[in-house]
């Protein structure tokens, strides 16, 4: 586990999207949050390093699937707890957060 990541509005959006649909991949998170890959992936890497997210490859061999595999992300128990703690501070800014 790394250092504590900053809890920004984008971070909250990503956590919100993943709590709504656990196991979503990058493109699905982009669709639900509107964040492009340039902003999304640094956030995903930071959160995963901090232990707030867990990720795993979809099952199957890329050769058999005929395409690259998806990486599916889920919010860990720690991530869920941190999101609930921090959402109180951000909830006036984001109407979508309804975890409190």
């Amino acid at each position: 586990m790394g250092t504590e990541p900053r809890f920004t509005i984008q971070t909250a959006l990503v956590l919100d999207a993943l709590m709504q649909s656990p196991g979503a991949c990058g493109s699905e998170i982009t669709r639900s949050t509107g964040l492009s890959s340039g902003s999304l992936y640094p956030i995903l890497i930071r959160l995963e390093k901090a232990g707030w997210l867990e990720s795993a490859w979809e099952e199957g061999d890329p050769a058999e699937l005929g395409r690259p595999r998806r990486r599916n992300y889920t919010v860990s128990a720690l991530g869920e707890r941190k999101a609930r703690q921090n959402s109180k501070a951000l909830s006036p800014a984001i109407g979508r957060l309804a975890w409190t």
Partner: protein
Amino acid sequence: MDLAGVILGLVLAIIWAEASAWLPALTRRIIRLAAKRLEPDLRERMEEEWLRYVQDMPGILGPFFAGCKCLLASVRIRPIRIAARRLQPAPKGRGLIPPSQINQFYLERLKELFHRSANEQKRLMWISAIAMGAAFSAALYVAGIKALASLISGGNSP
């Protein structure tokens, strides 16, 4: 005039077919370049993940732009990881800095690192912006010529 329209249409179709064939390969190269910029333990994973990500983008230009943004992502991911690695304490017996100056030393290193990564980020953002601008202008140009060709052929049809 009809012949000119046909030739123009043909040339445009060839240009469009070439662009459609080259853009996926160019996007793959951009993603490989982006993945190469990362730490070794992330390279393979992010390359596969980004290749999949761009496949989910709609259209012909969508994956290309998504690939360019992955390049930006790699620039944003890299400084965090390098900073974490460089700030590891020196191995035992090799610490040449007196304990009283350690905080100052790390502060200076952090400042230097921040300055460097900011400059690098700025440079890469400019390169991405120029590449995106060029691709967008090419698309507009092709669309404009197509419209002109249809206008010419439409104007000559009985």
